[in-house]
């Protein structure tokens, strides 16, 4: 890596280390119950919501009721988004004349945005109306992020709290939106517009170019979507080129700003967990594991991309200099260069955003493997808003159990005994996504509707297909985009995979939380396993690597690792 690469990484790390604890403190005050900052402004906005929903904001529910509300809201949201997409051609606010979206593509897109995946099998510029993007996709991006945070709050209450209930979904959802996502999105969107991201309703304008031709200049309410796309760890863009499009990500500064919009909130949620549970050291241990994984996959990719593609002729200069960004520039923007591109793109792979600013399919095998690893380790570096915390807490339970077996003691987490019922749910949680990815991915590789969509030959093609399933199941949404995904097979299977990958883990995490809610808290003794020190953090890191690594290792060998050594 170059000095400029290290500087940008250091910048991201510093800003995150400074801002995440501050934001985490605000989040903890907001969700602790009782008085919270900004009540004078926010309470008058929230009370009418509770009145309209007819919920008592003081009530707290069992995990079953909480999960039922999450599922009901998801179901209704998908239906409405599907209808908007199906009818967009007949609805107003459609200056680009996007036609009604076909049924299967609408299903895929609705599932994709409601689950926070934001896999996009349609062309943003021409196949989605402004109305569909605003009232459909942006709303889904807000709610997906807020639902993730709400579920994490319920999981925290169940695992660490003393009550038998896990909270009130409508209150958590409303407060997340009103006090976190909307204010931050307004700020983020205005910063992006100031830098050059567009925000208008003018449709395509036609420019007469210098050379005597014409060029279509797109418009749209782009910044407002860009902000929540990132803050909600969604990743779905207004335009097809996504975060690489100059109207979404105009400068080297916005590139880093957008990465911060993705990763600060998930880290802040971990800090919030430390405060809410009264064990800040536990949060530091978890955040450290997340940060190490983040640095691992990101630095490896940055290094690989700046090193370049060794198969290009030597007379094509990939050497970095003051006047040449160098490196592997296929599918990358000049203003970002290879390192900042890999930092932004692969950095968001450990969240569920997958907000790329460069074409992953054209990454070197090792650079692309970095993106794979971020996703395959289960989106915990630092993960989606709330989803990352929920996932790593489940993995921590697994680590506690394994450690307990090794030393011959009943495993405990937050003083609560971890027994058979919890472990069954934990195992189901860790196996759901790999089973879906490997079964459907390998099926797609051997049947014609699956492999005929592949663009690149050889092992790279295997990566394209497996990445699509890994990305969908983990609700990431980024793609090795050479794959032609707008087909019956992929729209249907990937749509279903996204739904399974979102809602099954949510229900299981809530069930785990519910089974621990109200469990007897045992006093700490000298023999209690310390789960917040560096030893446990290292152990947790190892468990994550073994679980993720062993399950996916054969696939990685056949894909990016093989490609690295064969070519």
């Amino acid at each position, binding site marked *: 890596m170059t000095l400029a690469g290290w500087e940008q990484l250091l910048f991201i790390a510093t800003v995150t280390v400074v801002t995440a604890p501050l934001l985490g403190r605000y989040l903890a005050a907001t969700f602790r119950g009782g008085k919270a900052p900004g009540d004078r402004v926010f309470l008058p906005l929230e009370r009418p919501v509770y009145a*309209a929903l007819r919920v008592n904001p003081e009530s707290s529910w069992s995990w079953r009721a909480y999960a039922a509300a999450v599922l009901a809201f998801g179901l209704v949201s998908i239906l409405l988004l599907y209808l908007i997409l199906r009818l967009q051609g007949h609805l107003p606010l459609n200056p680009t004349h996007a036609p009604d979206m076909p049924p299967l593509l609408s299903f895929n897109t609705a599932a994709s945005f409601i689950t926070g995946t934001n896999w996009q099998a349609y062309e943003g510029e021409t196949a989605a109306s402004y109305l569909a993007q605003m009232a*459909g996709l942006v709303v889904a991006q807000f709610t997906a992020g807020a639902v993730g945070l709400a579920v994490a709050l319920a999981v925290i209450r169940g695992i660490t709290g003393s009550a038998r209930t896990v909270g009130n979904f409508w209150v958590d959802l409303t407060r997340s939106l009103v006090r976190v996502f909307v204010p931050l999105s307004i700020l983020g969107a205005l910063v992006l517009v100031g830098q050059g991201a567009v925000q208008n*309703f003018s449709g395509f304008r036609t*420019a007469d170019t210098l050379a005597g031709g014409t060029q279509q200049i797109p418009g749209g309410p782009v910044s407002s979507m860009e902000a929540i796309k990132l803050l909600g760890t969604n990743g779905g863009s207004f335009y097809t080129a996504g975060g690489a499009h100059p109207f979404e990500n105009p400068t*080297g500064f916005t590139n880093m700003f957008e990465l911060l919009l993705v990763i600060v909130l998930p880290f802040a949620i971990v800090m919030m967990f430390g405060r809410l549970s009264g064990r800040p050291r536990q949060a530091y241990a978890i955040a450290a594991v997340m940060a190490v994984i983040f640095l691992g996959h990101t630095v490896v990719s940055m290094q690989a991309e700046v090193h370049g593609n060794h198969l290009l002729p030597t007379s*094509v200069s990939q050497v970095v200099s*003051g006047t040449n960004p160098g490196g592997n520039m296929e599918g990358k923007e000049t203003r970002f260069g290879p390192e900042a591109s890999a930092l932004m793109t692969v950095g968001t792979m450990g969240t569920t955003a997958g907000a790329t600013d460069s074409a992953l399919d054209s990454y070197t095998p090792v650079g692309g493997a970095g993106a794979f690893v971020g996703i395959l380790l289960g989106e915990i570096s630092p993960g989606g808003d709330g989803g990352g915390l929920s996932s790593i807490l489940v993995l921590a339970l697994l680590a506690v159990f394994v450690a307990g077996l090794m030393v011959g003691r009943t495993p405990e987490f937050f003083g609560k005994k971890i027994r058979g019922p919890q472990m069954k749910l934990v195992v189901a949680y860790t196996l759901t996504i790999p089973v879906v990815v490997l079964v459907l991915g390998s099926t797609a590789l051997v049947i014609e509707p699956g492999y005929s969509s592949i663009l690149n030959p050889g092992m790279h093609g295997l990566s394209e297909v497996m990445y699509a399933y890994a990305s969908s199941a983990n609700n990431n949404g980024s793609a090795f985009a050479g794959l032609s995904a707008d087909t019956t097979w992929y729209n249907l299977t990937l749509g279903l995979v996204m739904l399974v990958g979102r809602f099954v883990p949510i229900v299981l995490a809530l069930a785990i939380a519910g089974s621990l809610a109200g469990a007897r808290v045992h006093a700490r003794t000298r023999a209690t396993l310390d789960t917040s020190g560096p030893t446990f953090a290292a152990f947790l890191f190892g468990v994550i690597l073994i679980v993720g690594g062993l399950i996916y290792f054969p696939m990685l060998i056949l894909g990016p690792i093989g490609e690295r050594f064969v070519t």
Partner: protein
Amino acid sequence: MRRHLVASIVMLIGVTVVLGFGYPLLITGLSQLFFRHQADGSLIYRDGTLVGSALLGQSFTDSRGNPLPGYFQPRPSDAGSGYDGGDSGASNLGPSNPLLIGFVAGVNTVGLGGKPSKTNPFATKSDPACVPVNPQGTPVTSPAPGQRYARNPDGSYVCDPDTVPERAIAYRRFNGMAPDAPVPVDAVTASASGLDPDISVQNALDQAPRVARARHLPLSRVLDLVHRYTSGRELVFLGEPTVNVLELNLALDRLR
């Protein structure tokens, strides 16, 4: 479950109105108030005519698609047929795809019979990585017995012009550089958006002598302009130094 569904519908209607309409309209209003130029797309007008956006690259080619020597040329583009603002996107070609790197001996080379081969049977004198095209001009990456290929008058294969080695050859020829002169990588690779407005400083410096010749200007005046339109890294260390092609070419036109 029924009470959850009813509450969900009420909530969804509320968020659709407030977040689906209120929020984007609020941002639009504020942006139009404070950042009108940016919010409209950083549009550039010349004599009252819209000529493009400072943030979007555009083609500088004649009606037959040949690059105009008097203008600095942007990077290759995969947005539609090139810099199509309605169809952004990348090539998505993998790092060992022959359509990107050509047929590299021992890596992805295939014999005339369709079997993997140690050498490239289509190699030409100037391009050892030549990927042949069929008589319709479509690249042939899976040669097979019976396949027909386009040939040059001297009998050599016609090569796919969009591989990196071929682009490098064309770049050197266009700019009057020596056959083995180094070519900056951004000049021969396509961007992620297909609308990259910038080129690297090296790319601009390599093109400057050709532009100066075509416009009958002293090289120093063109180089002055290149330096004036070079932007450094943001906040000194974010991103890369770049040259905005449209702004530079507009400045060239103003020199007349």
